[in-house]
């Protein structure tokens, strides 16, 4: 994995985000753009982006779409579990959405350095 791979992935994220923005705005056509964007941006930041990065190690095995979908499910799972314990340890839940996604992204990048192994 190198910087180019990450940039390629980020480009795909940008396209996906744009497409999802259009879909969500069409579904919620009575809602303001700012609310839809706040809704999507926060969800994307918390679960979709870290999810795809978490599975980056296996990028050759799974295409971007599958990695994004399965990674998001994984990210929701890991977030929910860790958030509970971090809360019990005293870290306010308001901070979890800021701190956990970069942690997941970093973990995914670290894992990806090892290549496509189990």
């Amino acid at each position, binding site marked *: 994995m190198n910087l180019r791979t990450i940039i390629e992935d980020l480009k795909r994220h940008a396209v996906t985000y744009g497409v999802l923005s259009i879909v969500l705005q069409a579904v919620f056509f009575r*809602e303001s753009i700012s609310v839809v964007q706040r809704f999507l941006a*926060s969800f994307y930041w918390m679960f979709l982006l870290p999810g795809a990065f978490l599975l980056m190690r296996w990028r050759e095995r799974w295409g971007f779409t599958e990695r994004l979908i399965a990674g998001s*499910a*994984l990210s929701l799972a890991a977030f*929910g579990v860790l*958030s509970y314990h971090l*809360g019990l340890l005293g870290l306010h839940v308001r901070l979890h959405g800021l701190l956990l996604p970069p942690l997941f992204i970093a973990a995914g990048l670290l894992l990806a350095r090892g290549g496509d192994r*189990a």
Partner: protein
Amino acid sequence: MMKLRKAWIDGAVLLFMLAVLLHLGYGRILEHRLDHGYPFGYLAADTFQHQSRSDGVLRLGNFRYEPIQHFIGIYPHFPGYYPPVFLQLAAAWSGLSGLPTYVTAQALPFLTVALAMLLMYHIARRWHPVMALLSLPLFPFLFLSQAGVNAFTWGHWPQVTAQLFLILLVWLLCQPFWNPFLLAAAFASIVMGYTAYAPIAALLVAAYVTLALLTRTLEKEKVHALLIASAMALALSLKTLHLFVNILIPTQGEVSVLRDWAAGGGVVHLAEFGLQAWLLVAGAVLSVMLLAKSIRERGQAERWLPLVFPLLMLVLGFTNLIGFGKRAFFLRLLWPIYLSLLVGVTLYHVGLLVGKKLTEASAAAISLGAILFIALTATASAGGSIMSPEMWQLLSWLRDTTPQDAKLFFFYGDEFIGDNLWNVHRYHLRVMPEAVVEALVNRSARRFWSTTINSDTLPFTLVPADHHKENPFIWGWSANNSYEYLLLRERDMCEQDYLIFVKHSRQPVFAQYGQYLASKLLENPWFTLAFENDYGIVLRNSMPGASCIKEGPIEAAP
């Protein structure tokens, strides 16, 4: 070029399906607006239960204690016993985005179900890409039966959300390698998402191991990964399991045989899938035949799991008949996702029978057409809310303005269904409607009213009531059948700090009577009008305990 075209077909189909299903479910139920300024699309008490609990977690910062109990102050240190994953997700999302918890808690089941569909499609693709595409037309049925829609508007949110993690587990098990960290996250999230699904996770693993043994493909590395993942998941979910054993099992661990569940919003039946029910049944038979044939050929176990999974979920959906009760009905809610591949199997073989081997492009076209047709003919009703903007304004005022130790007294209101009032995050009493009826029949003004402490009742249902724990592991609590005494009692209206009376009711006499009482209370100089809007009024009592109303016949017709 061919690969690119296939990827494009795949992406376009999934995007179209996602858009249609979001429109059909989430969009339609919310009348195409995300934030109405108050909880919209909330049609039962459980919706507010999950929303207000998430809101409480956000306010407290963690789920160490049950927020509702903590705020009302009777058992402030009663442990947060509910499976925490959903609450944490809703609270953290709200904390980051600034969106209210009534938006984030409601959105989670819709979005996780959307992910579940997309992930299930990728599981099905491992069996056969064309069959996977042909399986898509079953997905819209998620929002076509009334029971399906009710799952979202009546609040089966944590259960629905946790089913994504069951599908994630299957996706992971379908891989040719197993990573212990990924498996551990799936296991732990199932236990901490909805603990009752833990046996299903075990069953899925058992299904894989059985298949692997039958095909003689059980690998040592996978067994190692499984053991490590199980140990990690156990460590992560130990606290949840501990609370589950000591709190939820004594109070809600009953084995019940249910055939219907009107109180829970109804049950999904196979017949509701119309023509697709026949395709589905045929698909089940075909799948069993395919499995029997394939296992003899000794393929890899993970290759067959996509086909075993729907069969397993079909059978588990009927376990209501052997005591799994409403939990079986929760699984049925996602039958349109779980069983979709069975429809794909049938359609593909029908194609073969008529001498046409379908390609991905033709399968995609058939599916898109079918999804569009089904979506356009959708009939299940949705929309509306128990909450109104004015009622939400009143509750928000109480939550944001009154002191934390204030005692609130809710007189009769059509919308006072219990859990929606939890949003005040204060000790509050709710007058029993039958007491109001009795007072009206007797045409009398009262000071003492039959009331309930409006709260999560579970801490009151466990004995001993002081929640003394002699053994740190097994607390020995049991269900208390006479717990209602603790909650339901006659209490003095004059002792409360804030009294809430509505202005309107479907039976106007209820509201008129409440307004009459309020006018009598305001004759005391220590009572003031603290808040008023179109929905109701809030009176502030600055001398709690002082005699505030003359008991006896009412002085004028209300």
